[in-house]
C-alpha cells in the first residue's frame, strides 16, 4: 500500500470547507487558484481526503470549464467569444494577444505565465469586448489596452 503523504494544500483547502461533497466544486476551484491546475496526485489526494472516488473527482472537475486538469499558466486570460463581444470586436483582441504572447488561443506560454482562452458569455455584453484575467474582469477592451494589460501582468 502506497502511504504517500497527502498534499498539504489539498488537506488545508478541503478542511476549510469541512471535506463535504457539496463543497467539492469550491474546493476544486480554490485548488486550481492555488496550484494552477489539478494533477493526478492532487486528484487522488483530494479523493482520499474527502473519501470519494478519484474518478468522481475527475468526472466533476472535467465537466466545468474553469477547473483545469491540464498544465495552465499562472494567469488565465479568457476572452468572451459570445455574440455581443464578437460584434464589438473580440477577434482583434484575440489576434493581438496571440501575437503578443506568441501562442495560439487555447495554448500556454512556455514560461507558464499565460494561458489564452476564449469563454462563453461573461455577462458584460453592454461593455464588450470583455475579458477575464483569472478572476478579474476587464471591459471595453481593444487590442492596445489588452496588450498593455498583459504587459502589466508580466511585470507583476
Amino acid at each position, binding site marked *: *500500500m*502506497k502511504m504517500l503523504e497527502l498534499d498539504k494544500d489539498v488537506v488545508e483547502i478541503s478542511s476549510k470547507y469541512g471535506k463535504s461533497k457539496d463543497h467539492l466544486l469550491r474546493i476544486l476551484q480554490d485548488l486550481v487558484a492555488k496550484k494552477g491546475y489539478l494533477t*493526478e496526485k492532487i*486528484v*487522488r489526494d483530494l*479523493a*482520499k481526503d474527502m473519501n470519494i*472516488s*478519484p*474518478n*468522481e*473527482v*475527475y*468526472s466533476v472537475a*472535467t*465537466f*466545468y*470549464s474553469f477547473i483545469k*486538469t491540464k498544465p495552465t499558466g499562472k494567469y488565465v486570460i479568457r476572452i468572451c467569444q459570445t455574440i455581443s463581444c464578437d460584434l464589438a470586436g473580440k477577434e482583434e483582441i484575440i489576434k493581438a494577444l496571440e501575437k503578443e504572447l506568441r501562442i495560439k488561443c487555447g495554448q500556454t506560454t512556455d514560461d507558464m505565465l499565460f494561458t489564452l482562452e476564449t469563454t462563453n458569455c461573461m455577462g458584460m455584453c453592454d461593455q464588450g469586448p470583455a475579458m477575464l484575467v483569472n478572476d478579474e474582469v476587464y471591459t471595453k477592451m481593444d487590442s492596445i489596452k489588452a496588450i498593455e494589460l498583459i504587459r502589466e501582468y508580466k511585470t507583476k
Partner: protein
Amino acid sequence: MQTAVESKLTVSINGKEFDARKGETILQLAKRNDINIPTLCNHADLCESGNCRMCVVEVEGQRVLQASCTTPVAERMVIRTNTRKVRKTRQMIIELLLAEHVGDCQTCKRNTNCELQDLAAEYGIEEVRFGKSQEKRYEVDTRTPIVRDNDKCILCRRCTQVCEEIQGVEAIKPMGRGKDTDIGCLFGLPLDETTCVFCGQCINRCPTGALTERDATKEVWKAIDDPTKHVVVQTAPAIRAALAEEFDIPPGERVTGKMASALKMIGFDTVFDTDFTADLTIIEEGTELLTRLKKALVEKSQVALPMFTSCSPGWINYIEHYYPDLLPNLSTCKSPQQMFGALIKTYYAQKKGVDPKNIVSVSVMPCTAKKFEADRPEMYDSGYKDVDHVLTTRELARMIKQAGIDLMDLQDSEFDDPMGISTGAAVIFGATGGVMEAAIRTAYELVTGREVPFANLDIRPVRGMEGIREASLTITDPLPEWSFLNGAEVKVAIAHSLTKARMLMDKVRAGEATYHFIEVMACPGGCLGGGGQPIPTSPEIREKRAQAIYTEDGAMKLRKSHENPAVKVLYEEFLKEPNGHKSHELLHTKYTPKDTW
C-alpha cells in the same frame, strides 16, 4: 380493498385503456401490457437515467415528447407510442448514435447481440444522413480482462451506473462535458490503475460492443491445435445453467452433459469439473472455520472472525482495495478455479504421468475477474502458472460455434475421472448462498454426526435473491470432540453485489456484526450473474438460472461435499488431511492490502 381501488389509474395507450398502478412509469405500464417501446439506457437492474431518449412517446397535453422510462403515469393520461412523430424521432436518435459509432459490425463480438444493431434494423435505418465517422479516436487497451472500446460507446451510461449503483466501485465514470464526454478513468488511466475489481458487470450491461472480455479463445485454440500440449479444461458450476442462452434457448435450461460433450468435441484432452474443487473448498474452508471457532471459543486466542468466503475473485479485489484491514478475516482458501489449477499440474500430472510443463490448463468461468485471478503472482504454486487461460461462458459459446457444433443437438456425456466427480453441494456454488449452504451441510454433519435439520437438505433460509440474508443455526448434541459448540448459535450472513458486501463489511469493521461466517459474491445473484455470463442479464434471468442450479442439485445422488468419493481419494493419495501441509502449499494463499483509491 379501498386503497387498491384508489391507487389504480386508468391510462390510455394507443387508444386502448389500461389499469395502471400509481407511481409506475409509462414504460413499465407498457411492458406489462406487451406494448413494445424501444429503450437503450434503461436496464432492469438500474435506476432510470433517461439519457438516450429512445423511449419517447407522445403524451396528450404535453408540449414535447416524454421519455416513457422516467415519466410516471397519471390518471386519464393519453399516450401514443407509435405516431409518425415518435417513429421519426426514434429513427433520428438511432442515426445520431450511428454517426458517432465507429466500428464494423462484422468484426465485433457483439455482432447479432447488439441493441443498437437491433434497433437500427427494427427502425429500418438504411443510411446515416450525417455520414458515419470512420476514424478511430480511441486506443483499445487489451491488457486488462475488461476491454473498453470507446469508439463503440453510445454513452448510455449503463456501465457507470452498474459500477456505482450495484458495485459501489466507481472505476469508470463519464468524463468531460458535452460532445467531449466519454467513459473512462481519471486522466485517461487504464483500468488497472483504478480500483476496478474486474467483475465485468459493465460488460453485461453494455448494449453494444464497447465493453467486452479480453479474448482467450485464440490462445486456447492454439493449445488445442498443438499436439505436444495436453489441454485440460475445468468448467465452473454456473456455466451449465446459462450456456444454452448463447444458443437462443430461454434462460433456465441446464446443459451439463451437452457441454461436456461439446468440450470433448472441441478437442480438450481432459474435461473436468470445477465442482470437484468446489467440494474440496468446502472441506478445506469448513475445517478452517471450525478451527477458527475452536481457537476463539476453547483456546480463547485472538482469531479473526467472522470468517469470509474467498471464492469470488471480484470480491477479493474489492476487499484488497476497500477493506484491507479485514483481510485476516478472509478464508485462506483459494477459489475452486485456482485449487483446480494447482492440482492439475501436480496431482493430476503425477497420476496421469504427464510433464506439467506440457499441460495447458484452461478454465471456463462465468467471470472476468477469474481472468485477473489466474494472472495473479500468488497463483503459481504448482511451479507453473496454475491456470493458463480463462474463458468466459460467452467465449466458450463462440468456440463451440466455431467448431461447428450444434450444442442443443448433442448427446449428454460425463466429465472425466477423477476430477469430474462432484456433489450437489458443489453445483450450488453458482448461486448466491450456495457456498454457505454447502458449508453448512458439511460442517453441521461433521460436528453433530447428523444431517442438517432441513427437509431434503434444502437450506432455504440462505437461498434467494435478497441482497443481504442472515441465518442462524443452534448446535445441539455435538460429537464429543466438538462439545465446545454445544448450544452455540452459529450465525451466518450472505451478501451478493459489492454495495451489499460493503454494508456487511461496515458492520464488521464497526464491531457490530455477530456473525461467524459470511459469504460474499461480487456479482448480483452470485456466479450465475457473473460478468462472463451470456448477455443480457436481469433479475428475472438470474432467477431462472438459479432455479436451474437448484434443480441440478436436487437431482444429484450425492448432495454433500464430504461424500465426494474422488475428494476422499485425493486426501488419501495426495493431500493427506484438510488444512494439512500440502493443502497449505497448494490450496491456500494470502492476499495483500492495496490502495483504496
